[in-house]
């Protein structure tokens, strides 16, 4: 079956059924008891007790019931996309028709559990603005992945981006986002941080943790056990602890989260369970938004959003208070950023940076990670034990592969562009940040170079704004394109210092960058008593304008 495209008005749209594999998905939860039964059978060598047979019968019974229920539900659920709405009909005894106007649909979320993926189907949820938490959401249990993609496109084609910007409530917590909580630093780092905290607290109280008998016996047992099993177990424990910690922190931090325009000029974030936080941002001080995708979160298809706003306190405070969306699906993040900017968040169509930027990232990684690590290991290996020599070449190999992969990813992340009222810049691999900065908010430009970047024709352009982190970088641009970008993005700052004779090419760049070490470089530079002479000249400039 095929997903519906929006229909032309007049002709009634056809109803579509869910995929047959929905039934299998419904039976999915039977896997665990059946599996354990099979294991029991294996373990007992086929001699199965009466109790087990009764269990099996019960399982078979519920299996049958579930299948029937699933069959009926499958048979009684259908959906269609008419020219102006998305409708889902369901219910066995009570028939329910739910219809959502297409222009109200803000998100279409496709999720597939491992079981779904195995069967090649996916769950589609269509949410409307500000209601993503609860009832006003339509979900379809199982569609083939292709159908789901088509339906999503059909639904979102009509979703009105401008309307998204008009809606006062931009985003609310959706507890399905909890799945992104473990994809943060807290999974591993948090456990060690907590352990460190406990240690320090004990130490502060004058207790030496390693002298406690519990700790000692635990360590003895750990050492006595088979290391190949205790070490993975310990890692697993850390992982589980970290995940639990991350979930707890997520719930605590984002309970009742709500991001909304309380009036035309005030953006408000409210969140928190034990500590409730409320941050209001005046529209006039809101200068842009950052879409942050840390490596792990990005791998899971998630992102968070920060506001670029003035008056949120010092750097530390700003870092805490500017977060306006917890780790959430990327589509939601883009939508939230759009609602915050009241314009579509410019997420695509960025210009790539020169290949030299890729080489630079590779070199930097190899020089700063692979080389020193290998040298240290090799040196120690020569001094102490030959095992370390093997570690050295293994490290060289593995770290080189990782570094090259990260460098490629970092290079692919690079991008910039001017889109509407915004300057957009993207960079980073450990945290890929896409920043959209209001062009009229740019207060100064900085061009930064190093000898290496000058040789390869790269420059990092920094836009200063009186908001957020103050300086936002467009990293490793082509040096001959940077001034034009700066002039186009924020006119009226640097035009008078531009040399318009340029034809591009190396000769020009050589003139553009003064020859270092030479005393007289660059045309028209006044050595020596610059003073009044130079100043008067400048005053003439001033008068002329």
């Amino acid at each position, binding site marked *: 079956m095929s997903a519906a495209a929006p229909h032309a008005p007049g002709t009634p749209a056809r109803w579509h059924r869910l995929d047959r594999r929905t039934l299998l998905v419904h039976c999915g939860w039977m896997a665990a008891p059946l599996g354990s039964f099979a294991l029991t059978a294996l373990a007992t060598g086929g001699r199965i007790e009466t109790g087990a047979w009764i269990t099996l019968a019960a399982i078979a019974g519920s299996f049958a019931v579930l299948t029937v229920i699933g069959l009926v539900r499958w048979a009684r659920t259908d959906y269609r996309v008419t020219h102006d709405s998305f409708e889902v009909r369901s219910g066995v005894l009570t028939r329910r028709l739910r219809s959502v106007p297409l222009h109200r649909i803000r998100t279409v979320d496709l999720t597939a559990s491992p079981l779904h993926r195995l069967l090649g189907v996916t769950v589609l949820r269509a949410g409307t603005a500000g209601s993503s938490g609860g009832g006003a959401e339509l979900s379809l249990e199982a569609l083939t992945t292709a159908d789901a993609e088509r339906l999503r496109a059909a639904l979102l084609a009509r979703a009105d981006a401008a309307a998204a910007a008009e809606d006062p409530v931009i985003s609310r917590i959706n507890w399905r986002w909890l799945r992104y909580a473990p994809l943060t630093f807290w999974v591993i780092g948090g456990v060690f941080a907590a352990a460190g905290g406990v240690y320090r607290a004990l130490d502060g109280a004058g207790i030496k943790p390693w002298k406690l008998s519990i700790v000692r016996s635990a360590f003895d047992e750990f050492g006595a056990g088979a290391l190949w099993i205790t070490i993975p177990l310990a890692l697993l424990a850390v992982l589980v602890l970290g995940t639990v910690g991350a979930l707890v922190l997520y719930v605590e931090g984002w309970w009742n989260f709500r991001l909304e325009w309380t009036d035309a000029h005030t953006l408000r974030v409210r969140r928190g369970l034990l500590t409730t936080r409320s941050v209001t941002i005046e529209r006039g001080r809101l200068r842009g938004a950052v879409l942050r995708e840390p490596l792990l979160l990005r791998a899971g298809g998630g992102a968070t959003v920060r506001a670029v706003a003035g008056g949120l306190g010092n750097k530390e405070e700003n870092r805490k208070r500017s977060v306006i969306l917890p780790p959430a699906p990327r589509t939601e993040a883009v939508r939230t950023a759009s609602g915050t900017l009241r314009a579509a968040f410019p997420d695509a169509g960025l210009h790539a940076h020169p290949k030299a930027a890729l080489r630079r990232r590779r070199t930097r990684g190899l020089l700063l990670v692979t080389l020193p690590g290998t040298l240290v290991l090799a040196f120690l290996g020569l001094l102490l034990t030959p095992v370390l020599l093997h570690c050295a070449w293994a490290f060289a190999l593995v770290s080189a592969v990782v570094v090259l992969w990260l460098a490629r990813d970092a290079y692919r992340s690079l991008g910039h562009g001017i889109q509407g009222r915004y300057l957009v810049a993207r960079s980073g691999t450990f945290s890929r940040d896409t920043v959209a900065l209001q062009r009229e908010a740019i*207060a*100064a*430009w*900085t*061009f*930064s*170079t*190093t*000898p290496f970047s000058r040789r390869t024709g790269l420059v990092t352009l*920094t836009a*200063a*704004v*009186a*908001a957020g982190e*103050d*300086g936002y970088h467009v990293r490793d641009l082509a040096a*001959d*394109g940077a*001034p*034009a970008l700066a*002039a*186009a993005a924020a*006119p*009226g*700052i*640097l*035009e*008078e*210092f*531009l*040399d*318009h*004779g*340029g*034809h*591009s090419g190396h000769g020009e*760049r050589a*003139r*553009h960058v*003064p020859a*270092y*070490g*030479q*005393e007289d470089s*660059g*045309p*028209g*530079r*006044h*050595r*020596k008593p*610059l*003073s009044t002479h130079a*100043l008067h*000249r*400048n*005053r003439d*400039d*001033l008068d002329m*304008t």
Partner: protein
Amino acid sequence: MSAPATPLLRPPRNRVDPRARRWWTVQALLTVSGPALLTALALAVCSVLFFPGALPWLGPLLLVALVLPALGYLLVMPRWRYAVHAWELGGRAVYAANGWFWQKRRIAPLSRVQTVDTVRGPLQQRFGLATVTVTTASTAGDVKIAGLSDADAEELSRRIGEAAQAVPGDAA
């Protein structure tokens, strides 16, 4: 922008005072090179007095790790800096280049100027130099011009002040 060809950012027109080179040299001597050289000397003397056997390997190590970098910094940095540092006051913006290895060129429009500070450190006073810092609302937009002569600094800060007054401001 109006130019058809790719426009390029030219360096600022005015160099800083030549005396700045001496100031930077002394600064390098006091902060980096001097301490490094003294450390090397102290270690070498200690080695000669107490562990003469260590000298054959300690000597080259000190030379490579401390003496050469210190001398290199002392000799290269001030010249390089002097070649880079420059400034210019335009009709609508103030423009400065600074740094040596890592170089920065920063342009801030006069309409965003909040304050103009002239600072003379104890060392700078000896050489008759001053640093003019033009602050904007963003810390990433502060323009610093180091190594101006006193007279230039005074004149410059006065003129930036005047120009900032003349240009309609939106220094928010």
